[in-house]
Protein backbone atom coordinates (compact mmCIF):
# COMPACT_ATOMS: atom_id res chain seq x y z
CA UNK A 1 0.00 0.00 0.00
CA UNK A 2 1.24 3.42 -0.94
CA UNK A 3 0.52 6.60 0.93
CA UNK A 4 -2.14 8.55 -0.97
CA UNK A 5 -2.18 11.77 1.02
CA UNK A 6 0.46 12.98 3.44
CA UNK A 7 -0.06 16.27 5.25
CA UNK A 8 2.59 17.54 7.60
CA UNK A 9 2.32 20.62 9.82
CA UNK A 10 -0.19 22.42 7.61
CA UNK A 11 -1.14 26.01 8.44
CA UNK A 12 -3.65 28.00 6.38
CA UNK A 13 -5.07 31.43 7.16
CA UNK A 14 -7.41 33.93 5.51
CA UNK A 15 -6.25 37.52 5.84
CA UNK A 16 -4.46 36.74 9.08
CA UNK A 17 -7.19 34.69 10.78
CA UNK A 18 -6.14 31.10 11.09
CA UNK A 19 -8.35 28.44 9.51
CA UNK A 20 -6.03 25.44 9.94
CA UNK A 21 -3.35 25.09 12.57
CA UNK A 22 -0.64 22.46 12.53
CA UNK A 23 -2.62 19.72 10.79
CA UNK A 24 -0.77 16.46 10.11
CA UNK A 25 -2.10 13.12 8.96
CA UNK A 26 -1.53 10.44 6.35
CA UNK A 27 -4.05 8.45 4.36
CA UNK A 28 -3.07 5.17 2.76
CA UNK A 29 -4.45 4.15 -0.62
CA UNK A 30 -7.73 2.29 -0.64
CA UNK A 31 -9.39 4.12 2.22
CA UNK A 32 -12.72 5.88 2.51
CA UNK A 33 -12.06 8.74 4.88
CA UNK A 34 -14.52 11.15 6.46
CA UNK A 35 -13.52 14.67 7.47
CA UNK A 36 -15.78 15.64 10.33
CA UNK A 37 -16.08 18.78 12.38
CA UNK A 38 -18.40 21.67 13.23
CA UNK A 39 -19.22 24.54 10.85
CA UNK A 40 -16.23 26.72 10.15
CA UNK A 41 -13.83 24.00 11.31
CA UNK A 42 -11.80 24.36 8.14
CA UNK A 43 -12.99 21.20 6.39
CA UNK A 44 -13.50 22.86 3.01
CA UNK A 45 -10.28 24.78 3.54
CA UNK A 46 -8.41 21.52 4.04
CA UNK A 47 -9.71 20.12 0.75
CA UNK A 48 -8.81 23.32 -1.06
CA UNK A 49 -5.33 23.24 0.43
CA UNK A 50 -4.95 19.63 -0.76
CA UNK A 51 -5.88 20.85 -4.25
CA UNK A 52 -3.51 23.80 -4.03
CA UNK A 53 -6.45 26.16 -4.59
CA UNK A 54 -5.41 28.27 -1.61
CA UNK A 55 -1.99 29.28 -0.47
CA UNK A 56 -0.69 27.44 2.56
CA UNK A 57 1.33 29.35 5.11
CA UNK A 58 3.46 26.48 6.24
CA UNK A 59 3.67 22.73 5.98
CA UNK A 60 3.96 20.05 3.35
CA UNK A 61 1.38 18.22 1.31
CA UNK A 62 2.16 15.18 -0.79
CA UNK A 63 -0.27 13.38 -3.05
CA UNK A 64 0.87 9.87 -3.99
CA UNK A 65 4.34 10.82 -2.91
CA UNK A 66 4.60 13.88 -5.15
CA UNK A 67 3.50 17.52 -5.07
CA UNK A 68 -0.08 18.31 -6.02
CA UNK A 69 1.18 20.22 -9.06
CA UNK A 70 2.61 17.02 -10.47
CA UNK A 71 -0.42 14.97 -9.48
CA UNK A 72 -3.19 17.32 -10.58
CA UNK A 73 -4.78 14.96 -13.07
CA UNK A 74 -4.84 12.19 -10.46
CA UNK A 75 -7.17 14.11 -8.15
CA UNK A 76 -10.86 14.86 -8.70
CA UNK A 77 -12.83 17.33 -6.65
CA UNK A 78 -16.59 17.42 -6.13
CA UNK A 79 -17.39 20.93 -4.88
CA UNK A 80 -19.98 21.97 -2.33
CA UNK A 81 -23.29 22.26 -4.14
CA UNK A 82 -23.71 25.89 -3.14
CA UNK A 83 -20.62 26.87 -5.14
CA UNK A 84 -22.10 25.95 -8.54
CA UNK A 85 -24.12 28.21 -10.85
CA UNK A 86 -27.11 25.94 -11.47
CA UNK A 87 -28.54 28.27 -14.12
CA UNK A 88 -25.53 27.83 -16.39
CA UNK A 89 -26.55 26.68 -19.90
CA UNK A 90 -25.09 23.20 -19.67
CA UNK A 91 -26.74 19.78 -19.83
CA UNK A 92 -26.15 16.80 -17.60
CA UNK A 93 -24.07 14.87 -20.13
CA UNK A 94 -21.96 17.91 -21.04
CA UNK A 95 -21.23 18.45 -17.34
CA UNK A 96 -19.95 14.89 -17.06
CA UNK A 97 -17.93 15.36 -20.24
CA UNK A 98 -16.00 18.16 -18.49
CA UNK A 99 -14.37 15.37 -16.51
CA UNK A 100 -12.52 14.27 -19.62
CA UNK A 101 -11.01 17.74 -20.20
CA UNK A 102 -7.99 17.55 -17.86
CA UNK A 103 -6.45 14.66 -19.79
CA UNK A 104 -7.27 16.12 -23.22
CA UNK A 105 -5.01 19.12 -22.98
CA UNK A 106 -5.46 22.45 -24.67
CA UNK A 107 -6.99 22.83 -28.18
CA UNK A 108 -8.20 19.21 -28.31
CA UNK A 109 -11.92 18.45 -28.33
CA UNK A 110 -13.52 15.44 -26.65
CA UNK A 111 -13.80 12.59 -29.16
CA UNK A 112 -16.23 9.73 -29.52
CA UNK A 113 -14.48 7.57 -26.93
CA UNK A 114 -14.53 10.43 -24.43
CA UNK A 115 -18.23 10.91 -25.00
CA UNK A 116 -18.88 7.19 -24.68
CA UNK A 117 -16.93 7.17 -21.43
CA UNK A 118 -18.96 10.11 -20.10
CA UNK A 119 -22.11 8.14 -20.86
CA UNK A 120 -20.69 5.17 -19.00
CA UNK A 121 -19.97 7.29 -15.95
CA UNK A 122 -23.45 8.76 -16.08
CA UNK A 123 -24.89 5.27 -16.21
CA UNK A 124 -22.94 4.28 -13.09
CA UNK A 125 -24.74 6.95 -11.10
CA UNK A 126 -28.08 6.00 -12.65
CA UNK A 127 -28.72 9.27 -14.47
CA UNK A 128 -28.73 8.20 -18.13
CA UNK A 129 -32.37 9.10 -18.66
CA UNK A 130 -31.89 12.70 -17.60
CA UNK A 131 -28.75 13.26 -19.70
CA UNK A 132 -30.20 16.09 -21.79
CA UNK A 133 -31.68 18.05 -18.91
CA UNK A 134 -30.22 21.37 -17.92
CA UNK A 135 -28.44 20.80 -14.58
CA UNK A 136 -30.70 23.21 -12.71
CA UNK A 137 -33.73 21.07 -13.57
CA UNK A 138 -32.57 18.26 -11.27
CA UNK A 139 -33.14 17.52 -7.61
CA UNK A 140 -30.28 18.07 -5.18
CA UNK A 141 -29.46 14.37 -5.07
CA UNK A 142 -29.45 14.08 -8.84
CA UNK A 143 -27.16 17.11 -9.10
CA UNK A 144 -24.74 15.53 -6.69
CA UNK A 145 -24.75 12.30 -8.68
CA UNK A 146 -23.94 14.22 -11.87
CA UNK A 147 -20.91 15.77 -10.22
CA UNK A 148 -19.83 12.37 -8.93
CA UNK A 149 -20.10 11.09 -12.51
CA UNK A 150 -17.91 13.99 -13.63
CA UNK A 151 -15.33 13.00 -11.03
CA UNK A 152 -15.47 9.39 -12.27
CA UNK A 153 -14.85 10.65 -15.81
CA UNK A 154 -11.57 12.17 -14.59
CA UNK A 155 -10.31 8.65 -13.78
CA UNK A 156 -8.47 9.90 -10.71
CA UNK A 157 -6.67 8.00 -7.97
CA UNK A 158 -7.88 10.36 -5.25
CA UNK A 159 -11.44 11.68 -4.85
CA UNK A 160 -12.17 14.72 -2.70
CA UNK A 161 -15.86 15.41 -2.03
CA UNK A 162 -17.16 18.41 -0.11
CA UNK A 163 -20.44 17.73 1.74
CA UNK A 164 -21.93 15.46 -0.93
CA UNK A 165 -24.88 14.47 1.26
CA UNK A 166 -26.29 17.90 2.05
CA UNK A 167 -29.80 18.35 0.64
CA UNK A 168 -29.71 14.91 -0.94
CA UNK A 169 -32.55 12.35 -0.99
CA UNK A 170 -32.12 8.90 0.53
CA UNK A 171 -31.81 7.00 -2.78
CA UNK A 172 -29.13 9.34 -4.07
CA UNK A 173 -27.23 9.14 -0.80
CA UNK A 174 -27.28 5.34 -1.02
CA UNK A 175 -26.17 5.36 -4.66
CA UNK A 176 -23.34 7.77 -3.89
CA UNK A 177 -22.01 5.93 -0.86
CA UNK A 178 -22.14 2.57 -2.59
CA UNK A 179 -20.12 3.95 -5.52
CA UNK A 180 -17.62 5.48 -3.11
CA UNK A 181 -17.26 2.11 -1.36
CA UNK A 182 -16.70 0.39 -4.69
CA UNK A 183 -13.99 2.92 -5.51
CA UNK A 184 -12.32 2.24 -2.19
CA UNK A 185 -12.49 -1.49 -2.81
CA UNK A 186 -10.62 -1.18 -6.10
CA UNK A 187 -7.88 0.76 -4.34
CA UNK A 188 -8.88 4.39 -4.91
CA UNK A 189 -8.66 6.87 -2.08
CA UNK A 190 -11.83 8.77 -1.22
CA UNK A 191 -12.01 11.70 1.19
CA UNK A 192 -15.45 13.03 2.08
CA UNK A 193 -16.30 16.13 4.07
CA UNK A 194 -19.30 15.34 6.20
CA UNK A 195 -20.60 17.72 8.81
CA UNK A 196 -22.64 15.38 10.99
CA UNK A 197 -21.71 12.29 12.86
CA UNK A 198 -24.68 10.12 12.02
CA UNK A 199 -23.73 7.21 9.81
CA UNK A 200 -20.02 8.00 10.15
CA UNK A 201 -19.33 4.43 11.26
CA UNK A 202 -21.45 2.98 8.46
CA UNK A 203 -19.85 5.10 5.75
CA UNK A 204 -16.17 5.53 6.52
CA UNK A 205 -13.34 3.37 7.68
CA UNK A 206 -11.17 6.27 8.81
CA UNK A 207 -12.03 9.66 10.23
CA UNK A 208 -10.30 13.01 10.39
CA UNK A 209 -11.80 15.01 13.21
CA UNK A 210 -11.10 18.66 12.68
CA UNK A 211 -11.71 21.90 14.47
CA UNK A 212 -9.04 24.24 13.11
CA UNK A 213 -6.57 21.86 14.68
CA UNK A 214 -6.56 18.15 14.09
CA UNK A 215 -8.49 16.74 17.04
CA UNK A 216 -8.03 13.13 16.14
CA UNK A 217 -7.35 10.89 13.21
CA UNK A 218 -7.56 7.15 12.63
CA UNK A 219 -9.91 4.20 12.47
CA UNK A 220 -13.55 5.18 12.86
CA UNK A 221 -14.07 3.20 16.07
CA UNK A 222 -11.08 4.83 17.66
CA UNK A 223 -12.18 8.38 16.78
CA UNK A 224 -15.88 8.04 17.50
CA UNK A 225 -15.61 8.18 21.27
CA UNK A 226 -17.51 10.68 23.38
CA UNK A 227 -14.44 12.23 25.00
CA UNK A 228 -12.82 12.81 21.57
CA UNK A 229 -15.97 14.21 19.98
CA UNK A 230 -16.50 16.56 22.91
CA UNK A 231 -13.18 18.09 22.11
CA UNK A 232 -14.23 18.89 18.55
CA UNK A 233 -17.79 20.00 19.09
CA UNK A 234 -18.15 21.44 22.58
CA UNK A 235 -14.83 22.92 23.41
CA UNK A 236 -15.20 25.95 21.19
CA UNK A 237 -15.64 28.32 24.08
CA UNK A 238 -12.65 27.10 26.02
CA UNK A 239 -10.44 27.28 22.92
CA UNK A 240 -11.57 30.88 22.46
CA UNK A 241 -10.62 31.79 26.02
CA UNK A 242 -7.30 30.06 25.53
CA UNK A 243 -6.64 32.32 22.58
CA UNK A 244 -7.45 35.41 24.57
CA UNK A 245 -5.12 34.39 27.36
CA UNK A 246 -2.31 33.81 24.88
CA UNK A 247 -2.94 37.15 23.17
Amino acid at each position, binding site marked *: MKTAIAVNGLYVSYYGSEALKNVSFTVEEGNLVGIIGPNGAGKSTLLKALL*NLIQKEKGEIAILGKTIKEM*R*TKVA*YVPQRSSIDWD*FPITVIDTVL*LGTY*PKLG*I*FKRPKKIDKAFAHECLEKVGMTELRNRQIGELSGGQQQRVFLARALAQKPEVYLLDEPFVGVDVTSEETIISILKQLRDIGKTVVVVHHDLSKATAYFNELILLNKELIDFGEVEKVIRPEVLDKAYNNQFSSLTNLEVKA
Partner: protein
Amino acid sequence: MINFMDALMFYGFLQKALITSIMVGIICGVIGCFIILRGMALMGDAISHAVLPGVALSYMLGINFFFGAVFFGVLTSLGIGFISQNSRIKNDVSIGIMFTAAFATGIIMITLMKSSTDLYHILFGNVLAVRPSEMWSTLIIGVFVLVCVYAFYKELLVSSFDSTMAAAYGLPTRVIHYFLMTLLTLVTVASLQTVGIVLVVAMLITPAATAYLLTNRLWVMIFLSAGIGVLASIFGLYFSYTYNLASGAAIVLAATVLFVLAFVFSPKQGLVFRAIKNVRKRELLSR
Protein backbone atom coordinates in the same frame (compact mmCIF):
# COMPACT_ATOMS: atom_id res chain seq x y z
CA MET B 1 -35.29 59.56 -50.26
CA ILE B 2 -34.85 56.09 -51.78
CA ASN B 3 -35.64 53.08 -49.64
CA PHE B 4 -33.11 51.11 -47.63
CA MET B 5 -32.62 48.18 -50.02
CA ASP B 6 -32.06 50.38 -53.08
CA ALA B 7 -29.78 52.64 -51.10
CA LEU B 8 -27.81 49.61 -50.01
CA MET B 9 -27.14 48.70 -53.64
CA PHE B 10 -26.26 52.24 -54.47
CA TYR B 11 -24.21 53.71 -51.64
CA GLY B 12 -20.81 52.40 -50.63
CA PHE B 13 -21.04 54.06 -47.23
CA LEU B 14 -24.17 52.12 -46.43
CA GLN B 15 -22.59 48.84 -47.47
CA LYS B 16 -19.62 49.54 -45.26
CA ALA B 17 -21.95 50.46 -42.43
CA LEU B 18 -23.88 47.22 -42.87
CA ILE B 19 -20.78 45.00 -43.00
CA THR B 20 -19.28 46.72 -39.96
CA SER B 21 -22.41 46.50 -37.88
CA ILE B 22 -22.97 42.85 -38.78
CA MET B 23 -19.46 42.04 -37.62
CA VAL B 24 -20.02 44.03 -34.44
CA GLY B 25 -23.28 42.16 -33.86
CA ILE B 26 -21.47 38.84 -34.17
CA ILE B 27 -18.48 39.52 -31.94
CA CYS B 28 -20.44 41.38 -29.27
CA GLY B 29 -22.90 38.50 -29.22
CA VAL B 30 -20.15 35.90 -28.83
CA ILE B 31 -18.06 37.66 -26.17
CA GLY B 32 -21.24 38.83 -24.43
CA CYS B 33 -22.16 35.20 -23.65
CA PHE B 34 -19.03 34.76 -21.56
CA ILE B 35 -19.45 38.17 -19.98
CA ILE B 36 -22.94 37.47 -18.67
CA LEU B 37 -22.22 33.86 -17.66
CA ARG B 38 -19.24 34.98 -15.60
CA GLY B 39 -21.34 37.66 -13.94
CA MET B 40 -19.19 40.39 -15.45
CA ALA B 41 -21.83 42.63 -17.03
CA LEU B 42 -20.59 45.54 -14.96
CA MET B 43 -17.05 44.77 -16.06
CA GLY B 44 -18.19 45.00 -19.67
CA ASP B 45 -19.63 48.43 -19.02
CA ALA B 46 -16.47 49.46 -17.23
CA ILE B 47 -14.01 48.38 -19.90
CA SER B 48 -16.03 50.01 -22.65
CA HIS B 49 -15.97 53.35 -20.82
CA ALA B 50 -12.35 52.96 -19.84
CA VAL B 51 -11.09 52.98 -23.42
CA LEU B 52 -12.04 56.66 -23.82
CA PRO B 53 -8.72 58.14 -22.64
CA GLY B 54 -6.95 55.69 -24.93
CA VAL B 55 -8.97 56.90 -27.89
CA ALA B 56 -8.28 60.52 -26.99
CA LEU B 57 -4.57 59.88 -26.57
CA SER B 58 -4.41 58.13 -29.92
CA TYR B 59 -6.03 61.15 -31.61
CA MET B 60 -3.47 63.44 -29.96
CA LEU B 61 -0.56 61.26 -31.05
CA GLY B 62 -2.08 60.69 -34.46
CA ILE B 63 -1.94 56.89 -34.18
CA ASN B 64 -4.69 54.34 -34.82
CA PHE B 65 -7.03 54.60 -31.80
CA PHE B 66 -6.97 50.83 -31.55
CA PHE B 67 -3.59 50.87 -29.74
CA GLY B 68 -4.47 53.48 -27.15
CA ALA B 69 -7.84 51.92 -26.48
CA VAL B 70 -6.48 48.43 -25.94
CA PHE B 71 -3.76 49.81 -23.69
CA PHE B 72 -6.22 51.66 -21.43
CA GLY B 73 -8.76 48.83 -21.46
CA VAL B 74 -6.24 46.28 -20.26
CA LEU B 75 -4.69 48.73 -17.79
CA THR B 76 -8.10 49.38 -16.23
CA SER B 77 -8.94 45.70 -15.89
CA LEU B 78 -5.57 45.09 -14.24
CA GLY B 79 -6.22 48.03 -11.91
CA ILE B 80 -9.64 46.69 -10.96
CA GLY B 81 -8.19 43.26 -10.22
CA PHE B 82 -5.33 44.78 -8.23
CA ILE B 83 -7.59 46.86 -5.98
CA SER B 84 -10.06 44.09 -5.21
CA GLN B 85 -7.36 41.49 -4.58
CA ASN B 86 -5.26 43.68 -2.35
CA SER B 87 -7.87 45.26 -0.14
CA ARG B 88 -11.25 44.57 1.40
CA ILE B 89 -12.92 46.60 -1.36
CA LYS B 90 -15.37 44.44 -3.29
CA ASN B 91 -15.07 43.90 -7.00
CA ASP B 92 -18.11 45.99 -8.06
CA VAL B 93 -16.90 48.95 -6.00
CA SER B 94 -13.42 48.75 -7.45
CA ILE B 95 -14.94 48.58 -10.93
CA GLY B 96 -16.96 51.72 -10.18
CA ILE B 97 -13.92 53.63 -8.97
CA MET B 98 -11.61 52.68 -11.81
CA PHE B 99 -13.85 53.09 -14.81
CA THR B 100 -15.33 56.43 -13.81
CA ALA B 101 -11.79 57.68 -13.22
CA ALA B 102 -10.69 56.52 -16.66
CA PHE B 103 -13.82 57.91 -18.32
CA ALA B 104 -13.45 61.29 -16.62
CA THR B 105 -9.82 61.44 -17.72
CA GLY B 106 -10.92 60.74 -21.27
CA ILE B 107 -13.55 63.48 -21.23
CA ILE B 108 -11.05 66.04 -19.98
CA MET B 109 -8.50 65.01 -22.60
CA ILE B 110 -11.07 65.37 -25.36
CA THR B 111 -12.26 68.74 -24.07
CA LEU B 112 -8.66 69.92 -24.16
CA MET B 113 -8.54 68.85 -27.80
CA LYS B 114 -11.54 71.16 -28.35
CA SER B 115 -13.32 68.88 -30.71
CA SER B 116 -16.72 68.06 -29.39
CA THR B 117 -17.96 66.43 -32.60
CA ASP B 118 -15.36 63.72 -32.16
CA LEU B 119 -16.47 63.21 -28.59
CA TYR B 120 -20.07 62.90 -29.71
CA HIS B 121 -19.19 60.27 -32.30
CA ILE B 122 -17.02 58.26 -29.95
CA LEU B 123 -19.66 58.29 -27.26
CA PHE B 124 -22.64 57.49 -29.42
CA GLY B 125 -21.25 56.02 -32.61
CA ASN B 126 -21.94 56.99 -36.19
CA VAL B 127 -21.90 53.90 -38.29
CA LEU B 128 -22.91 55.76 -41.46
CA ALA B 129 -19.56 57.54 -41.36
CA VAL B 130 -17.40 54.40 -41.18
CA ARG B 131 -14.24 54.71 -43.23
CA PRO B 132 -12.83 51.74 -45.19
CA SER B 133 -9.82 51.47 -42.85
CA GLU B 134 -12.15 51.30 -39.86
CA MET B 135 -14.28 48.66 -41.51
CA TRP B 136 -11.18 46.58 -42.14
CA SER B 137 -9.88 46.91 -38.61
CA THR B 138 -13.29 45.84 -37.32
CA LEU B 139 -13.21 42.80 -39.59
CA ILE B 140 -9.68 41.84 -38.55
CA ILE B 141 -10.46 42.24 -34.86
CA GLY B 142 -13.63 40.24 -35.40
CA VAL B 143 -11.86 37.35 -37.06
CA PHE B 144 -9.17 37.35 -34.37
CA VAL B 145 -11.75 37.28 -31.56
CA LEU B 146 -13.72 34.49 -33.20
CA VAL B 147 -10.62 32.37 -33.79
CA CYS B 148 -9.59 32.81 -30.15
CA VAL B 149 -13.01 31.80 -28.85
CA TYR B 150 -13.04 28.79 -31.16
CA ALA B 151 -9.54 27.69 -30.18
CA PHE B 152 -10.07 28.09 -26.42
CA TYR B 153 -13.76 27.16 -26.31
CA LYS B 154 -13.18 24.22 -23.98
CA GLU B 155 -11.13 26.25 -21.54
CA LEU B 156 -13.55 29.18 -21.64
CA LEU B 157 -16.46 26.83 -20.98
CA VAL B 158 -14.96 25.05 -18.01
CA SER B 159 -13.49 28.15 -16.40
CA SER B 160 -16.77 30.05 -16.79
CA PHE B 161 -18.88 27.22 -15.41
CA ASP B 162 -16.65 25.88 -12.64
CA SER B 163 -13.52 27.92 -12.14
CA THR B 164 -12.61 25.84 -9.10
CA MET B 165 -12.40 22.68 -11.17
CA ALA B 166 -10.51 24.56 -13.87
CA ALA B 167 -7.96 25.80 -11.35
CA ALA B 168 -7.76 22.38 -9.68
CA TYR B 169 -6.71 20.68 -12.88
CA GLY B 170 -4.17 23.34 -13.63
CA LEU B 171 -5.79 25.86 -15.96
CA PRO B 172 -4.39 29.36 -15.38
CA THR B 173 -7.76 30.89 -14.49
CA ARG B 174 -6.34 34.34 -13.86
CA VAL B 175 -4.63 34.41 -17.23
CA ILE B 176 -7.91 33.32 -18.83
CA HIS B 177 -9.67 36.19 -17.05
CA TYR B 178 -7.27 38.81 -18.38
CA PHE B 179 -7.27 37.19 -21.80
CA LEU B 180 -11.05 37.57 -21.87
CA MET B 181 -10.69 41.17 -20.70
CA THR B 182 -8.35 41.78 -23.63
CA LEU B 183 -10.84 40.26 -26.07
CA LEU B 184 -13.53 42.40 -24.46
CA THR B 185 -11.43 45.51 -25.01
CA LEU B 186 -10.86 44.58 -28.65
CA VAL B 187 -14.59 44.06 -29.15
CA THR B 188 -15.31 47.42 -27.54
CA VAL B 189 -12.85 49.16 -29.82
CA ALA B 190 -14.32 47.42 -32.85
CA SER B 191 -17.78 48.61 -31.80
CA LEU B 192 -16.91 52.26 -31.19
CA GLN B 193 -17.97 53.42 -34.66
CA THR B 194 -21.16 51.43 -34.66
CA VAL B 195 -22.77 51.86 -31.27
CA GLY B 196 -20.35 54.11 -29.41
CA ILE B 197 -18.78 53.73 -25.98
CA VAL B 198 -21.88 54.43 -23.94
CA LEU B 199 -24.02 51.74 -25.56
CA VAL B 200 -21.49 48.97 -26.28
CA VAL B 201 -22.48 47.23 -23.09
CA ALA B 202 -26.01 46.80 -24.44
CA MET B 203 -24.69 44.94 -27.48
CA LEU B 204 -22.62 42.75 -25.19
CA ILE B 205 -25.38 41.94 -22.77
CA THR B 206 -28.78 42.17 -24.43
CA PRO B 207 -28.32 39.63 -27.28
CA ALA B 208 -26.50 37.24 -24.94
CA ALA B 209 -29.23 37.52 -22.32
CA THR B 210 -31.86 36.95 -25.01
CA ALA B 211 -30.08 33.80 -26.15
CA TYR B 212 -29.69 32.71 -22.52
CA LEU B 213 -33.48 32.60 -22.25
CA LEU B 214 -33.76 30.36 -25.31
CA THR B 215 -31.34 27.47 -24.79
CA ASN B 216 -29.62 25.12 -22.35
CA ARG B 217 -26.41 24.69 -24.29
CA LEU B 218 -23.52 27.11 -24.36
CA TRP B 219 -22.59 26.68 -28.01
CA VAL B 220 -26.21 27.14 -29.08
CA MET B 221 -26.36 30.22 -26.90
CA ILE B 222 -23.26 31.62 -28.61
CA PHE B 223 -24.70 31.11 -32.10
CA LEU B 224 -28.10 32.47 -31.12
CA SER B 225 -26.54 35.46 -29.44
CA ALA B 226 -24.44 36.25 -32.50
CA GLY B 227 -27.51 35.84 -34.71
CA ILE B 228 -29.57 38.12 -32.50
CA GLY B 229 -26.75 40.66 -32.53
CA VAL B 230 -26.73 40.59 -36.33
CA LEU B 231 -30.51 40.97 -36.56
CA ALA B 232 -30.41 43.89 -34.18
CA SER B 233 -27.63 45.50 -36.22
CA ILE B 234 -29.54 45.13 -39.49
CA PHE B 235 -32.86 46.37 -38.09
CA GLY B 236 -31.11 49.16 -36.25
CA LEU B 237 -29.24 50.26 -39.32
CA TYR B 238 -32.44 50.18 -41.34
CA PHE B 239 -34.27 52.43 -38.90
CA SER B 240 -31.24 54.61 -38.43
CA TYR B 241 -31.00 55.23 -42.18
CA THR B 242 -34.69 55.46 -42.93
CA TYR B 243 -35.67 57.78 -40.06
CA ASN B 244 -32.30 59.49 -39.61
CA LEU B 245 -31.79 58.24 -36.04
CA ALA B 246 -28.53 57.79 -34.13
CA SER B 247 -27.25 54.40 -35.30
CA GLY B 248 -26.10 53.13 -31.89
CA ALA B 249 -29.38 53.95 -30.20
CA ALA B 250 -31.41 52.37 -33.02
CA ILE B 251 -29.38 49.15 -32.91
CA VAL B 252 -29.61 48.89 -29.14
CA LEU B 253 -33.36 49.44 -29.16
CA ALA B 254 -33.74 46.75 -31.83
CA ALA B 255 -31.83 44.37 -29.54
CA THR B 256 -34.05 45.36 -26.64
CA VAL B 257 -37.19 44.57 -28.65
CA LEU B 258 -35.80 41.10 -29.42
CA PHE B 259 -35.05 40.60 -25.74
CA VAL B 260 -38.58 41.55 -24.73
CA LEU B 261 -39.98 39.10 -27.31
CA ALA B 262 -37.85 36.28 -25.86
CA PHE B 263 -38.71 37.29 -22.33
CA VAL B 264 -42.41 37.03 -23.08
CA PHE B 265 -42.50 34.11 -25.53
CA SER B 266 -39.46 31.88 -24.78
CA PRO B 267 -40.63 28.24 -24.63
CA LYS B 268 -38.76 27.49 -21.42
CA GLN B 269 -38.39 30.76 -19.57
CA GLY B 270 -40.98 33.03 -21.16
CA LEU B 271 -43.81 34.65 -19.23
CA VAL B 272 -46.51 33.26 -21.51
CA PHE B 273 -45.47 29.63 -21.31
CA ARG B 274 -44.85 29.83 -17.60
CA ALA B 275 -48.35 31.17 -17.11
CA ILE B 276 -49.81 28.39 -19.26
CA LYS B 277 -47.86 25.79 -17.29
CA ASN B 278 -49.09 27.22 -14.00
CA VAL B 279 -52.71 27.20 -15.16
CA ARG B 280 -52.35 23.57 -16.31
CA LYS B 281 -50.82 22.58 -13.00
CA ARG B 282 -53.64 24.25 -11.09
CA GLU B 283 -56.20 22.46 -13.26
CA LEU B 284 -54.50 19.14 -12.58
CA LEU B 285 -54.46 19.80 -8.86
CA SER B 286 -58.08 20.89 -8.68
CA ARG B 287 -59.31 17.81 -10.46
